[in-house]
C-alpha cells in the first residue's frame, strides 16, 4: 500500500510538470503582458522594460521556465557552465537579481502585479480559506446527499422518494449565482442570521489549514457559501446513492443476508450500505475538482478572500507567476484528492488491493 502511494506520487510529478509547462506557455502566448496598461495608466516604455527585466521577461522562454522551476541559482549556474547556449548572456546578467529560488525548493516566485508580494504569501493567505470552504461544502454534500439517497432507495416510489428526487433536481438546476444571493437575501438580510460576507476563521490554523470548528465566527461565515456550493453536489450524491443502493439491494448476497434471519436494518446497514457507497466514493474524485473550481463564483458572491479570486484576476492581469502557481496548486489538490479516494476505495472494497 505504501509502495503504491509512493509510486502514485512519483508518477504525478512528470504530469504536474507537463501541466505547469502548458499553463506557462499558454499564458505567455496570450496577447498583451503584465505591464501593458491602457489609457492614462500606461507606463513609460523604459519603466516597462525595467519591470520586464526585473522579472526575467526579456529572457527566452526556455530560460524563464528554468528559472521558475529550478530557480535563478541553478539556471545562472547552467549558463555559466554552458555559456554558448543561446540567450545565456541575458540569463547571466539577470540571474543575479534573483526573483525565484525555484519551484523544486518550494518557491512559487514573485507576483508580477501585486508589487513586492511573493506567490507563497498569497497562497498561504488564501489557500487555507478556499480549502476550508471546499471541505465544509463536501461535508454538507455528503451529510445531506447520502442519507437522502438511502431514504429514497429504501422507500422507493414513496413520497419520501419523490420529494427527495424533487429536491435533488432543484439542487442540481439552481445555479450558484442564483442560490448564493437568494440565501443572502433570506438569511442575513431578512432573518438576520449568519454573516453576509467575508470569512470568520483567522490564522493561525491547525496544521496550517484546519480552523477552530468550535468557533461560531467560522460557521457564521462558512455556512451559507458552503450550502451554496454543496447543494448541487448533495443532489448528485443523493441520486447516485439511491441508484447504487437500489441495485445492491437486489444482489444475491442481500437475499443470503435476509435468509439468515437478520433484521432489515442490519441487512441494509451491514450488508448493503458499504457496497453501495463504493460508486459514490468513486465520483468523489471528480467532485473534488468541481468543488475546487466551483469556489471561484461562490467566493466572489460572498466576498471570501480565497484563492479563486487570484485564479480569475491573474488571468486578466497576465500575472504569469500567479496563474501558473495557482493552477499547479489546484492540480496538486486534485491529485491528492484522487489518491485519497483510491485509498478509501481500497478500504471499502477488499477485492481491490493496490500493489
Amino acid at each position: 500500500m505504501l509502495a503504491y502511494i509512493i509510486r502514485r506520487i512519483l508518477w504525478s510529478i512528470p504530469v504536474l510538470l507537463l501541466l505547469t509547462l502548458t499553463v506557462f506557455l499558454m499564458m505567455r502566448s496570450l496577447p498583451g503582458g503584465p505591464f501593458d496598461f491602457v489609457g492614462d495608466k500606461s507606463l513609460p516604455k523604459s519603466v516597462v522594460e525595467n519591470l520586464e527585466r526585473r522579472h526575467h521577461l526579456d529572457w527566452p522562454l526556455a530560460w524563464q521556465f528554468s528559472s521558475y522551476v529550478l530557480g535563478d541559482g541553478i539556471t545562472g549556474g547552467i549558463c555559466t557552465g554552458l555559456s554558448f547556449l543561446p540567450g545565456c548572456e541575458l540569463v547571466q546578467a539577470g540571474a543575479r537579481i534573483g526573483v525565484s529560488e525555484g519551484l523544486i525548493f518550494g518557491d512559487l516566485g514573485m507576483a508580477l502585479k501585486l508589487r513586492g508580494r511573493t506567490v507563497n504569501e498569497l497562497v498561504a493567505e488564501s489557500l487555507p480559506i478556499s480549502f476550508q470552504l471546499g471541505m465544509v461544502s463536501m461535508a454538507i454534500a455528503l451529510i445531506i446527499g447520502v442519507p437522502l439517497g438511502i431514504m429514497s432507495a429504501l422507500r422507493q416510489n414513496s413520497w419520501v422518494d419523490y420529494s427527495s428526487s424533487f429536491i435533488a433536481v432543484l439542487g442540481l438546476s439552481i445555479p450558484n449565482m442564483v442560490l448564493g444571493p437568494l440565501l443572502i437575501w433570506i438569511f442575513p438580510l431578512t432573518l438576520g442570521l449568519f454573516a453576509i460576507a467575508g470569512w470568520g476563521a483567522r490564522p493561525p490554523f491547525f496544521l496550517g489549514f484546519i480552523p477552530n470548528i468550535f468557533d461560531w465566527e467560522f460557521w457564521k461565515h462558512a455556512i451559507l457559501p458552503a450550502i451554496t456550493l454543496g447543494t448541487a453536489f448533495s443532489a448528485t450524491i443523493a441520486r447516485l446513492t439511491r441508484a447504487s443502493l437500489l441495485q445492491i439491494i437486489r444482489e444475491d448476497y442481500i437475499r443470503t443476508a435476509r435468509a439468515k434471519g437478520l433484521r432489515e436494518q442490519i441487512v441494509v446497514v451491514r450488508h448493503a450500505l458499504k457496497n453501495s457507497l463504493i460508486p459514490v466514493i468513486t465520483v468523489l474524485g471528480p467532485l473534488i475538482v468541481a468543488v475546487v473550481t466551483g469556489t471561484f463564483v461562490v467566493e466572489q458572491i460572498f466576498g471570501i478572500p480565497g484563492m479563486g479570486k487570484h485564479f480569475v484576476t491573474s488571468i486578466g492581469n497576465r500575472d504569469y507567476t500567479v496563474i501558473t502557481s495557482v493552477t499547479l496548486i489546484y492540480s496538486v489538490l486534485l491529485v491528492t484528492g484522487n489518491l485519497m479516494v483510491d485509498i478509501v476505495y481500497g478500504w471499502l472494497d477488499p477485492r481491490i488491493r493496490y500493489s
Partner: protein
Amino acid sequence: MAPLLDVNNLTTHFYTQDGVVKAVNGISYSVDEGETVGIVGESGSGKSVGVMSLVRLIPTPPGKIVDGQVMFNGQDLLTLSKNEIRAIRGNKVAMIFQDPMTSLNPVLTIGRQISEAVELHLGMDKKQARNRTIELLELVGIPSAADRIDNYPHQFSGGMRQRVMIAMGLSCNPQLLIADEPTTALDVTIQAQIVDLVKRLREEIGMAIIWITHDLGLVAGLAQKMIVMYGGNIVEQAPVVDLYKNPRHPYTLGLLASLPRLDEDRPKKLLSIEGLPPDLVNYPQGCPFYARCNYRIDKCADTPPQLKEVGVKHKVACHVDVQTAKWTTEHPYEEFNLM
C-alpha cells in the same frame, strides 16, 4: 407422525407491469424429518419462487403469496409475524443458493458472515461464535480454517465458497436445509464433492433437505422423493426409484430421455424437449404442458389435469396414461404454433 413440512396449495404471483406472472400455482407436498426431497424442472418452472415462498423471501412487491399454507413443526409460516419468521430463517430453516460467487457479500469476511447468524440465533458472544465458525468451516472441509476465517469471499474458489455457504446454512443446526441449485454454477468434479459433503453432513446432523436442480442425474443418489415441476405446478411426485423406473408424466419422460444413461450399450441420441415453457402471464387454460406434449388429447386443451395417486406415494397430473397410450403427435410444438 406429522411431516416436518407440509405445503398446501402454495400460490405465488408477481404483479408486474406486463401483467400477473403466475410463478407458482397451488403446489402441495410434504417433507418428513430427515427426508431429502429433490425438485426438478427446467428453468423458470417456479422452483426457486416455490421454496423462497416457504420462508417468505419473495421480494414484495412485486411478489405476493396469494394463497396456501406452509405448516412447519405445526406452525403456519405464512401467518407468522415478521419477527417470528425471522427467528426461523437461518435457524430452523436454512437456505443455500445457486451462485456462490454472488451469494456471499464481497466486502465482509466469511467469518463475519457465518458468525452473524450464530450470534443471532444461538445467542453466542463474539468469541464463542468465532470458535463455532471455525468448527463449521472444518466440518465442511475448508483446510486451515482458523487462518481462512478472516479471508474475503474472493479469496476462495467457487467450490470452496459453496462450502462456506453450506457452513453458513448449517451453522444453527437447521431442521430443514433448502438448497437451490447449489451445484449448477460449479465444475462437474466439484459438483460431486459438494453432493458427497451434503450426504455426509446429512448423516451427522440429520436435517431434512429440499434439493433443487434441473439435473435429474445429480439428485438420483441423494433424494428419497422427487417432485417434478412444470409451469409453476407439480406435475409428478414419486419416490425416487419409482420416478426413474416408472415415470408417468410426459414431461418427466422427456426429462429422462434427455439424460445420458450409462446402463445402455450404445447411448441413444440425447433428446431435448421441443418448444418453450408456458407463458406465465397468459397462463394456458388446460394442461400447461399441452403445447409440447406428444401424448396430448383434446381434453388436455381446456381441462387442467389434477394431481392424482397412481401408485404408492406416486402422483401425477395427466389425463393420459403414458404406460398404455401412444403418441398422438410427433412434433407437438410445431403443430401447436400452427393451430
